[in-house]
């Protein structure tokens, strides 16, 4: 059942207009920052207002235009899209507060460009979430790449410029392949609109469909940092930490896995993927990524790079969950999308606080820092434990569903990787905590001034615990996730 | 065979002129000579048109004032290509005029009309 409303496009435009306003008020700092906060709050409220509609089973639609016979570019808000939009817009509010504290704490240059690009990239993210067909999603993918490029290359050092180029090469290359796949899909089926359960049945022979599937996964997979196209993510850590926090732990990479979730559930459909045998291929790729990235994380001394590899590994959890082709696996993927976001953003926020307060980037230099920044490191600990899947934290719920999905699919290898991965998570995150709280004789005085900088990690850490404990909150998550899964897997 | 060659003589001449013009345009280094090559090329094309207008035993395309009945086209040469070529000749002359003006201007700045020297100097002057 479809309802027509302008709220989807409003949600997207709110931050686009904010971006323009930010560009025009670049001289008045407080006014400029307020645009970001107002836009973030408004956006979250608009997205939230769609929640009751979607949970009733309705799909909120906004049409753009008819591109070709049979292809209407539109925004269609369904359970999966709303879920992703809630995660990104909600976390944007927290990140904006953190950004303001971070940028002012470091007296960063070109703040106008930073905040404007941030606002635009959120526009693009919500656009991806709400996209109703492949082409609209592609358009917003490209916009996301363009909007996040100034953020990656923000520092304008040689390292940042090279990172920016690498980012562009990876993302634009993937976008080109994605466009080719979209055109191919159109020429085979005459439609591009997402259908729960997929619309590519009988479009071509299994071999062609298999190739198409691989190319699609490549197109979206670059953004979700699957092996072997993951290399841009650690390099992009040269960006300011709020960028890494929101975009590379939450928005950009989650847009990538969101794309894969859409492709698996709404373009191909689990039955078709099983028929063409691609489920195992994707599962293998994702599983390998989990192990590979976890190993790489163990070897990193730079905190942000370690977190980057951790992100790569956790994203592969989500991809593996979707590759299981079972309802629980899909639900687990969706849950992990939001839970990991909360936990990772906590970790990145802490890294940002450490950098602003002490200019330290490497773990080996961070001995005893827990005494200087107690609340921050407590939040870090919460994030680290949650990521390992400890009960009472949100990570446990999503891992539960993922393992359930692995059991349902009878993919014991996946189950082993999930359980083993949890151990590896602990292995590369707990030492950071231990180092932070180890006494080494230096006397640190607690210095957590500047609440905009230090409160956000605590907030997201609390959220992590809340979404792991409170049935009401978990229930909301499950409602949307189950709805999406039901649509795809049929009852 | 010989008949054919003689009959297609005009095409041969046109072919020769056009290729000669192009040859000069490509091979010669001096811009003025290239211009001459261009003129020869244009002349070849004009000759082609005129030659296809000619007919064996035809007269000039003017209808005598004491004609009775209809006009027999085989008696008169085709005037249309002549008219077209008047236009083409005028176009060619204007092009030649523009070319010569440019040559004067180039000579004033570069003091030479040799292409290699001019290109070298163009490349040097960033």
């Amino acid at each position: 059942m479809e309802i027509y409303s302008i709220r989807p496009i409003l949600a997207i435009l709110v931050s686009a207009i904010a971006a323009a306003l930010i560009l025009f008020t670049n001289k008045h700092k407080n006014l400029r920052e307020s645009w970001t906060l107002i836009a973030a709050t408004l956006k979250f409220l608009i997205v939230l207002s769609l929640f009751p509609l979607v949970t009733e089973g309705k799909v909120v639609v906004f049409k753009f235009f008819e591109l070709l016979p049979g292809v209407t570019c539109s925004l269609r808000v369904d359970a999966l899209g709303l879920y992703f939009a809630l995660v990104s817009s909600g976390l944007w509010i927290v990140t904006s507060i953190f950004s303001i504290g971070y940028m002012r704490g470091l007296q960063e240059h070109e703040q106008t460009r930073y905040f404007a690009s941030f606002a635009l990239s959120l526009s693009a993210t919500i656009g991806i979430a709400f996209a109703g067909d492949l082409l609209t999603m592609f358009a917003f993918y490209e916009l996301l790449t363009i909007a996040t490029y100034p953020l990656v290359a923000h520092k304008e050092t040689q390292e940042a410029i090279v990172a920016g180029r690498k980012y562009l090469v990876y993302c634009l290359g993937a976008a080109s392949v994605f466009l080719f796949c979209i055109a191919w899909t159109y020429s085979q089926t005459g439609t591009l609109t997402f259908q729960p359960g997929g619309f590519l049945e009988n479009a071509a022979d299994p071999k062609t469909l298999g190739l198409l599937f691989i190319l699609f996964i490549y197109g979206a997979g670059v953004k979700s940092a699957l092996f072997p196209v993951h290399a841009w993510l650690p390099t992009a850590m040269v960006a300011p930490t709020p960028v890494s926090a929101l975009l590379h732990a939450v928005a950009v990479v989650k847009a990538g896995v969101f794309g894969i979730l859409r492709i698996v559930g709404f373009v191909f459909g689990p039955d078709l993927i099983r028929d063409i045998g691609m489920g195992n291929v994707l599962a293998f790729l994702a599983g390998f990524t989990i192990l590979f990235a976890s190993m790489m994380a163990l070897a990193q001394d730079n905190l942000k790079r370690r977190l980057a590899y951790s992100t790569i590994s956790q994203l592969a959890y989500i991809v593996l969950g979707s590759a299981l082709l079972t309802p629980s696996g899909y639900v687990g993927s969706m849950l992990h999308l939001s839970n990991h976001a909360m936990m990772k953003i906590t970790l990145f926020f802490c890294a940002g606080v450490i950098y602003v307060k002490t200019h330290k980037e490497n773990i080996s230099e961070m001995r005893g820092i827990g005494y200087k920044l107690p609340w921050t490191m407590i939040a870090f600990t919460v994030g680290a434990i949650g990521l390992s899947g400890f009960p009472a934290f949100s990570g446990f719920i999503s891992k539960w569903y993922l393992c359930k999905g692995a059991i349902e699919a009878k993919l014991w290898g996946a189950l082993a990787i999930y359980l083993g991965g949890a151990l590896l998570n602990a292995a590369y995150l707990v030492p950071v905590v231990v180092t932070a709280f180890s006494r080494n004789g230096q006397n640190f005085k607690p210095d957590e001034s500047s609440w905009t900088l230090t409160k956000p990690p605590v907030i997201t850490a609390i959220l992590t615990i809340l979404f792991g404990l409170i049935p009401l909150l978990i229930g909301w998550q499950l409602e949307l996730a189950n709805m999406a899964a039901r649509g795809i897997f049929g009852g | 065979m010989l008949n054919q060659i003689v009959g297609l003589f005009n095409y041969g001449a046109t072919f020769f002129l056009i290729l000669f013009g192009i040859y000069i345009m490509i091979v010669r280094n001096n811009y003025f000579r290239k211009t001459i090559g261009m003129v020869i090329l244009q002349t070849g094309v004009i000759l082609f048109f005129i030659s296809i207008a000619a007919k064996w035993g035809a007269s000039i395309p003017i209808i005598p004032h004491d004609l009775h009945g209809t006009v027999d086209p085989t008696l008169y040469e085709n005037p249309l290509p002549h008219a077209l070529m008047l236009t083409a000749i005028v176009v060619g002359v204007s092009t030649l005029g523009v070319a010569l003006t440019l040559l004067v201007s180039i000579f004033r700045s570069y003091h030479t009309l040799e292409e290699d020297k001019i290109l070298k100097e163009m490349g040097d002057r960033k």
Partner: protein
Amino acid sequence: MNPNMIPALIFLCPFMTALMVPFFHTKRSVSQILTLAALAGSFFFSLKGLSITGNGSVIHHYMGNWTPPYGIEWRLDTLSAFMSLLVSALAFIVIFATGVTVEKECTNAKIPYYTIVLLHVASLLGIILTHDLFNLFVFLEVASLTAYALVASGNDTRGNVASFRYLLIGTAGASFYLLGVGYLYAATGTLNMTDMALRLQELGISRTVFLGVTLILIGLAIKMGLFPFHGWLPDAYTHASDSASALIAPLMTKVMIYSFIRIVLWVIGRNTLTTLGIGPILTVFGTLAIVAGSIMAFMQRRFKRLLAYSSISHIGLIMLAFGLGNKTALIGAFLHILNHACMKAALFLVAATAYHRHGIDDIFDFSKLRGKMPYTMAAFCVAALSMVGIPPLAGFFGKWYILVGSLQAGKPIFAVLVVLSSLLTALYFFKVIEQTFFHRQKENVTVQEGPLALVISTGSLAIGLLILGYFAPAIFHWGFNLLVPAGVF
């Protein structure tokens, strides 16, 4: 007003004004205003023409009331109206924008400059409107001669050499075209396009016709800068004065492409694309143009030269689309002609602003422009992203339809090439964007924007790209059956 007069009026506005401008030599500032008035008149009549032919009807104008095949016929159908609208609108915007740069670059030659500009636009409109092959040659030559003069305008003496080389190659091209027309005339006995199409259908493809067609196509390919006949283009666009390159770069080659398509589809007939093998040849040349043009563009330091090679690359893309022989790709090509003309005009105006105000034409100096010309560089970003093909900007849609068309035609390799062209365009444009926005500025900057007219025009073209992007699917649907009627394709 008799609607049959509209084609003549579209042409006469700039033409008569060109003859009038020298009479105002005492008041030189009037020349720009007269030019703008003439182009506005042309635009108005094109709009009127499009409103009449927008539903597929055709306006015939017989010169001197001589009916074809004896007389010269001018025809306004949907495609001609579309193209003349594009030409007059863009010419108006560019002339409006470059008033100040003309003042600086051609101080003592404003009157001749505007006269030549008007004659150039008039002849372009003549090419678009005419339905007679020899008449097309005449206007082709007038357009070329005025273009040679425009390239040589300005203070740069290298412009004279570039213009001369352009003259040599261009005249050779026009001569080939004329020779081809001669062969076709010899075979069919007529010069009117419709009449010739009928007679060619009866006669079939003989050696004469084949030779004539080939020569015409080579001649036009030289004029439009299709690889490998593009040698004149980089120098001509780079060394021309900024005002002149902003005018000829977006328009001239597009009109040549239009006449190429017109002759192949309306005169020779669509089947020749396959039987004569023109289609595959065009796709090959197009491919080479895309790749070679993009690589050369990436290697350039001078901004205008980069734009010139970028033009070569996109002309190759349009020819590739045409050679595919698929209607979606063809209408996509026309859409891309429209979009590319607007984008290139915006980019050349940016180049003009940068050089006029700050003397900067090297892309490695663009970082100085970041703070000094924020609005212009913002417009530059929009135009560059549109060239790369980022939706929802205009440039994406042309490429999308060409992509779909190539898949529909069953030639996926060309789909890959279209996508590759986007990537390659991204390569050199992002290089410039990166240079501008992400390299440290060394000086303290105050905002020193370009002249108001330039900034307004560049800005409105950039906004126009957004609007064109939104309406592109609508234009595509409208044009699908109307631009190229079903009988022709």
